[in-house]
């Protein structure tokens, strides 16, 4: 024993001495290089195994998202088709009155656009910044043959809007392929004639309101889901296996039914002449005239989306609760805690990873949910995704992309907040 204790420090000293010099293998290669070589094969194999998935993700996820982000601030509809006047904008600073040279450049561009039939394209881009300018472009292009010096008068002869400062400002901001105009619009802002940024008029502000509403409604749905799912998940986790399985099937049933069927059933239940209203009337809770409007409005969106998203809350909660041994609660009770204290201080904190995962899942899904509000939301139940859909239908890809990018940013910010507050490793998705 005495020998051993004496030998130990000596051995430790030898080890530190060896690690100071670079370690080598028996045949003299540096240990690090040998290790890397030995692991290279395994790494290659692992990479080949995930390569198909990687390719799939890149093709179907990363590239489309990159393209979307690109479209949200890159649009060369005007700059590519009207290079001459774009060059004039580049040479003359903001606030310069358009001179004869500017009109001449514009005339040159219009002749080219008429030839290539691209006036619509350029007009569309300017139209995004200043509504109702597309028609001005197509009309002018039709009459491009009349454009002769002096150009300013020629333009004004075609349409007197051509000396409107707003039009020139719109063209100026369209003249660069890269623009923040779409983001400005998505934030309910616009450029004034002098190029400064201002908020749009009161009744034109829709996006910020819709963003706020989307996040609020999603938060509300998440909260309702949590309140409804918690007891169900707890029951699932504590019930004997056979009964738990049956309950689990009931929980998963919504997954197995078509979304349209589910939504239709909700319409049948909730509409003015629907089952729920009839029931309330039969029970005397409401009068025949006081039928509740529960669908085609905000309430309908909330009810149906809660139902659709509930399983996404139950499943992570269940998977966390299932592995909490009952001995924790028992230990707490034996240590003198009432059942409420046991729940609050022992059980609830241990379900946090499930609550976090479920809430994050439901919230993110709700924020981007589009089909349910479209079907049952009516006028006031629409969310930001419905507006994105609207822009996509109208081929305003850049606007849709800008809105989507902002949604994405919002979700990422939330994700970051979650990581800061709870810790992302404290997340259990299944």
């Amino acid at each position, binding site marked *: 024993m005495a020998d051993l204790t004496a030998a130990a420090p000596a051995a430790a000293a030898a080890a530190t001495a060896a690690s100071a010099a670079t370690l080598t293998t028996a045949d003299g290669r540096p240990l690090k290089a040998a290790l890397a070589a030995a692991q290279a094969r395994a790494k290659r194999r692992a990479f080949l195994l995930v390569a198909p998935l990687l390719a799939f993700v890149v093709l179907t996820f990363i590239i489309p998202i990159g393209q979307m982000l690109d479209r949200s601030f890159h649009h060369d509809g005007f700059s590519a088709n009207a290079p001459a006047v774009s060059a004039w904008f580049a040479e003359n600073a903001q606030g310069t009155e358009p001179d004869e040279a500017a009109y001449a450049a514009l005339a040159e561009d219009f002749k080219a656009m008429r030839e290539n039939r691209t006036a619509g394209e350029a007009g569309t881009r300017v139209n995004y910044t200043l509504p109702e300018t597309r028609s001005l472009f197509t009309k002018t292009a039709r009459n491009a043959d009349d454009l002769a010096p002096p150009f300013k008068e020629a333009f004004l002869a075609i349409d007197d809007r051509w000396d409107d400062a707003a039009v020139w400002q719109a063209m100026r901001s369209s003249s660069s392929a890269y623009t923040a105009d779409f983001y400005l619009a998505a934030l309910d802002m616009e450029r004034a004639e002098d190029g400064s940024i201002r908020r749009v008029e009161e009744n034109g502000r829709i996006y910020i309101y819709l963003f706020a509403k989307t996040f609020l409604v999603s938060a509300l749905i998440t909260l309702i889901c949590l309140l409804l799912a918690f007891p169900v998940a707890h029951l699932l986790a504590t019930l004997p296996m056979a009964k738990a399985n049956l309950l689990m099937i009931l929980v998963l049933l919504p997954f197995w039914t078509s979304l349209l069927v589910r939504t239709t059933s909700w319409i049948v239940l909730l509409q003015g002449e629907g089952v729920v209203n009839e029931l309330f009337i039969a029970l005397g809770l409401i009068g025949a005239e006081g039928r509740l409007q529960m669908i085609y409005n905000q309430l309908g969106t909330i009810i149906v989306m809660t139902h659709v998203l509930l399983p996404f809350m139950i499943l992570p909660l269940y998977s966390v609760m299932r592995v909490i*041994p009952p*001995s*924790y609660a*028992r*230990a*707490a*009770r*034996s*240590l*003198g*805690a*009432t*059942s409420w*204290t046991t729940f609050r*201080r*022992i059980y609830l*904190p*241990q379900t*946090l990873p499930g609550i976090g995962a479920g809430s994050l899942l439901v919230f993110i899904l709700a924020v981007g949910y589009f089909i349910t509000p479209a079907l049952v939301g009516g006028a006031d139940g629409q969310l930001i995704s419905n507006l994105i859909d609207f822009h996509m239908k109208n081929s305003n890809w850049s606007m849709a992309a800008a809105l989507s990018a902002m949604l994405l940013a919002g979700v990422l910010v939330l994700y970051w907040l979650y990581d800061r507050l709870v810790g992302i490793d404290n997340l259990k998705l299944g």
Partner: protein
Amino acid sequence: MQQGFGFIEIKTSGQTADKTGETNLAATMAAKSQSDVFVVFDHVQKSYDGVSLVVKDLNLSIGKGEFLTMLGPSGSGKTTCLMMLAGFETATNGEILLDGRPINQVPPHKRGIGMVFQNYALFPHMTVGENLAFPLEVRGMGKTEREAKIKRALDMVQMGAFANRRPAQLSGGQQQRIALARALVFDPKLVLMDEPLGALDKQLREHMQFEIKHLHESLGITVVYVTHDQGEALTMSDRIAVFNDGRIQQLAPPADLYERPDNSFVAQFIGENNRLEGTVEEIKGGRALVRLGTGELIDATPVNVQSVGQKTLVSIRPERVEFKPDLLPADAHMIDAEVIEVIYMGDLFRTVLKVAGHEDFVIKSRNTLGQRVLTPGEKIRIGWAPADARALDPI
């Protein structure tokens, strides 16, 4: 199997009745000597499914300051008894008294019983210090008093430096100590431990046995301890209750249990044991002669046999078997044996013999200076003092 045990009960009922009467008396006297009775199970029965009884008519009194161990095979109802005492299960029938008060209606958090779980059940989201603070906080204790108590409890288990660690950052043995400290920090009078050392390796287990025993003695608490491990039960307990099939088979101090088992189950369950089947030939002066199947006669002390002609199972401990005639009483019977295998175990030799047609008879002889080492194939004669062989109920 079930039928077999049923058979024991019927065959031995008369005998066990007065036997238990006797041990109960001894127990109450032992309890009395350690002041009075603290926990009483009074005709307690428990059924989970309404079809079968998991605990059948449990009667048990535990004295103040006693270390009582429940020992028994898996599924014999030990945990169930502990859970009824802790308040997590309700007795289907019968009464449990704690310090003279019936506690069937008292919720677990009002019983003031400390409990150590097999998997420790340390709250994973709290530090060691917070774990220990928990029982004190829920009792509304002030911060300074709390901290003093936590420090004392941690020092008691030599874990003073670990208050800020999380349970996951501790080794199994350290977690075990914290669980122990947590069960003791609020000064309970009664501490229940359900296989607290089950997850530890042998060396650590033995060390912790010693520490638990030491804490029990220095704190003067009453401990009800559940274990699978008979070595643990023998070394730690004041008394051991051997459970089987929902009943206490024997309740006795360790030495009694090992040396004077009441029935074949206990003899077989505790320690190594040789069994010889036979028929009672004669009972005289506290001594029985038993004729084996091969016709040989052996000596035994009658325990569960009353009359000549009864079938019996004679139980002898391997270390009480002798093969040197001069060490035996003059009138002791000896029988033939053939050495099959000798296993060297360091401090002793474990020799397997063929006796009365069975090749599983084991004797143990100490590895002392001048010990005669047997060789396989050797023919010897073995015998024992009549007091060391017990004629028990046949299985």
